[in-house]
């Protein structure tokens, strides 16, 4: 590392910029998760010495995946990694650390019951240092960065900011050259954020390369030298700080703004509500309130789009309406139905929720209507009826299956998605909740799903469409409810649809949940 020390006092920054080498470079990285979700597609990314490189994008854009690949936590499906121009491959985070690449995760990787010093000592891995040497070195680093680490307290007594500073020191002790921060400000409060930025600038001036993963545009603009924007697993653009015109420009890049085609279906005005949601408060599995008082009506034959950054309560809302998550308070009422009524539901979590992976395509196409597909008092399965329906589901969206009896786990992710969507649409009676219905589908299949949803609505079914694809929501919806921080901040009528305004509401203060 010593030989590559950068002299930041050099004033000819322009020249400097040109000769500065990338410490690490990722080329054409593609990552496909088991289940077929493509998290990164042909992504190029690099970090230079002495720069802060912001990686900006919505939740689910693929930022964390990319950085996990860069830090050796994940292996790419394809693509190459170069350190100092030499091709490398990381088998583990320890490999990446040997090449000077380290990551501070969103949830810190510290042992809470052990002291700061013990955690630091553990973090040294194969670097041998005596206790005294370690203390000297830690104090030196702390002084340089303006930290005041207490070494003898257990980690669980530390604040989030202190833990973060500890993580930074731990990486520096391993002599890393590139530090990756995943949403580093999400757990910090105001003054701690400022301190963190000070430390970042200090690290930068020491010649470290820094990657700053964030979805907060203002923070990216405040400290970074370069900004890379990702969306849907791809790099949308790379900008120098000086090339950024406005925050709005970045919002557009992050969320994506394309042509909104004309509505393609007759929109029957109907005031007849099919679903009434009133003052709904819902907690997630950990008991954190994710939906904080939501009320709306869904009308017959209407598509109500729910736009929001992922993690703002959409999933909990969908699950509560679908009857899978008991709300803390509030009411979900299906007009004219009794309390047992279950609406059709396309869950975002297709593998965990939507199908029984080890069971056949045939069984999975009736998994939510088993009793309806069996006869007699002892409920014998009516395989003729089941087979017929399964065939209908398969042909509806063109699911490719080896055979009706093949277990669903042998299907590709896209085909599983088509199976679920097809099943739920064909079974829809009054209300359908469609959560990310086109996620993971190719363009043609996605379009098929959208037109099927349109058709379903024109038959009078009320549809709640939750999607991270704003274009999709704009195209299909009659109204759009923007959800942010667990509240519906605004409902747009179709005449008022404006992607920019909707985007700004999505990103409204408090709109991001870390």
């Amino acid at each position, binding site marked *: 590392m010593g030989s590559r020390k950068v002299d930041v006092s050099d004033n000819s920054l322009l020249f400097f910029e040109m000769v500065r080498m990338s410490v690490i470079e990722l080329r054409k990285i593609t990552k496909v998760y088991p289940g077929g979700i493509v998290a990164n597609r042909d992504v190029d990314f690099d970090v230079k010495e002495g720069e802060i490189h912001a990686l900006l994008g919505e939740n689910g854009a693929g930022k964390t995946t990319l950085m996990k690949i860069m830090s050796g936590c994940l292996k790419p499906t394809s693509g190459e990694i170069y350190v100092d121009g030499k091709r490398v491959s990381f088998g583990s985070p320890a490999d990446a650390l040997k090449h000077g690449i380290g990551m501070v995760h969103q949830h810190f990787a510290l042992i809470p019951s052990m002291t700061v010093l013990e955690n630091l000592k553990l973090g040294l891995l194969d670097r041998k240092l005596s206790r005294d040497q370690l203390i000297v070195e830690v104090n030196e680093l702390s002084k340089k960065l303006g930290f005041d680490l207490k070494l003898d307290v257990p980690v669980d007594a530390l604040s989030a900011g202190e833990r973060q500073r500890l993580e930074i020191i731990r990486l520096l002790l391993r002599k890393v050259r590139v530090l990756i921060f995943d949403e580093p400000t999400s757990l910090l409060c105001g003054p701690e954020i400022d301190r963190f930025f000070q430390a970042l600038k200090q690290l930068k001036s020491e010649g470290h390369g820094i990657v700053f993963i964030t979805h907060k545009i203002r923070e990216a603009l405040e400290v970074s030298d370069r900004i890379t924007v990702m969306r849907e697993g791809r790099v949308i653009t790379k900008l120098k700080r000086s090339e950024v015109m406005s925050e709005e420009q970045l919002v557009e890049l992050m969320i994506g703004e394309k042509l909104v085609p004309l509505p393609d279906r007759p929109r029957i005005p109907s005031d007849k509500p099919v679903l009434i949601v009133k003052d709904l408060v819902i907690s997630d599995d950990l008991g954190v309130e994710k939906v904080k008082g939501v009320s709306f009506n869904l009308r017959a034959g209407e598509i109500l789009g729910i736009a929001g950054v992922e993690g703002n309560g959409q999933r909990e809302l969908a699950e509560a309406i679908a009857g899978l998550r008991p709300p803390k308070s509030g009411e979900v009422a299906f007009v004219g139905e009794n309390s047992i009524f279950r609406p059709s539901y396309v869950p975002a979590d297709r593998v965990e929720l939507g199908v029984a992976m080890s069971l056949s395509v045939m069984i999975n196409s009736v998994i939510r209507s088993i*009793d309806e597909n069996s006869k007699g008092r002892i409920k014998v399965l009516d395989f003729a009826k089941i087979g017929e329906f399964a065939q209908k589901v398969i042909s509806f969206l063109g699911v490719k299956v080896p055979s009706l009896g093949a277990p669903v786990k042998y299907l590709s992710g896209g085909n599983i998605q088509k199976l679920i969507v097809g099943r739920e649409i064909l079974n829809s009676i009054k209300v359908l909740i469609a959560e990310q219905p086109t996620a993971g589908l190719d363009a043609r299949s996605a379009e098929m799903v959208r037109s099927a949803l349109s058709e379903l609505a024109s038959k009078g079914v009320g549809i709640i469409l939750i999607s991270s694809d704003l274009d999709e929501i704009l195209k299909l919806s009659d109204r759009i409810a923007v959800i942010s921080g667990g509240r519906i901040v605004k409902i747009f009528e179709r005449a008022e649809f404006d992607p920019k305004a909707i985007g700004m509401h999505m990103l409204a203060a408090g709109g991001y949940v870390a």
Partner: protein
Amino acid sequence: MNIERQVNLVRALLALSSIGLAFVFCIMLIALSGKDPGEALFWLFYGGFSPALIPETFIRATPLLFVSLGLAVAFSAKIWNIGAEGQLYIGGVVTATLALHISGAPSPIALPMLILVSGIAGALWALIPAILRAIYGINEVITTLMFNYIAIYFVSYLLNGPLRDPVSLFPETTTISSSLWLPIVVPGTRLHLGVILAFLIMTPIMWFFLKRTALGLKLEILGSGEKTAKYAGIESVRMIIIAMLISGFMAGMAGGVEVLGIQHKMRLEISPPTSPYGYTGIAVALLGYLNPLLIAATSFFLGGIMNGSTTMHRMVGVPVGMAGIIQAFIILFILLGYFLEEKFIHRIIGGLRKVEH
């Protein structure tokens, strides 16, 4: 060739080769112990599968089959009932006690009732772990296992104390009245009605239940994931309790039928200590892919191995423990086959995917 055929072919080949491999290892072991492997294997198969001894193999397989049919129900819901052994003991002791009290009862009424009671006793023994698991989420592996100890030591107390036959040297009850013995089906053998009940009645019923009814399917969906089950509108609490009750019922019945058909009394060694039915049944259920028809075949095969290894011990002097080792090898290799199966099937599917795109 369609995909299920290919998968089944891979399964069959793997099952056969794993049994073959297991025997190769057994031959090596027997040779190491200084005995002639050829002779030993001859007696193993003679004792298990020679025509004259087939009825005994069926008799040995019967409690295994009852237990593993019941376990298949629980296991398809991924409810790991390890407590069949205890449920079997409870079923046995309750049946024997009741039979001793109603010795004069007409057998056409008493026998069905006794068998039913044995099942109910086993099911009730499974009920507490079932409730603990279904409602409070307490791991059923631990509770059912612990309940085995409670059951076996409780039965041991009864057989050494209040229920002990005063004239017997062993901890066992007095012999029940011969009018309450399960009738022999094939004269000259010990083949009793319980064997028929297991192989010809319970096996098809369980197959039909698991593969053809809505309830069986719901159990399987629950086994595929509690979240998916909830999404599918399945009440997992009810399903877990039902699955445990059925498997407890079958294990209890195994004990009851063994008492009424073979032992004619409750004994502490109602389940052979070298390969207890309640635990061997776990392997049988898994080896039979939780499919009642395959389970019946597997029970028969393992029953034969159990009997054959005793013969092998008597004739060649291969230690009895060796029989346990051989069984363990067979089970281990078949499990290895399972593991390889996944890989092979993935390859088949991989080829398929390529065609698809």
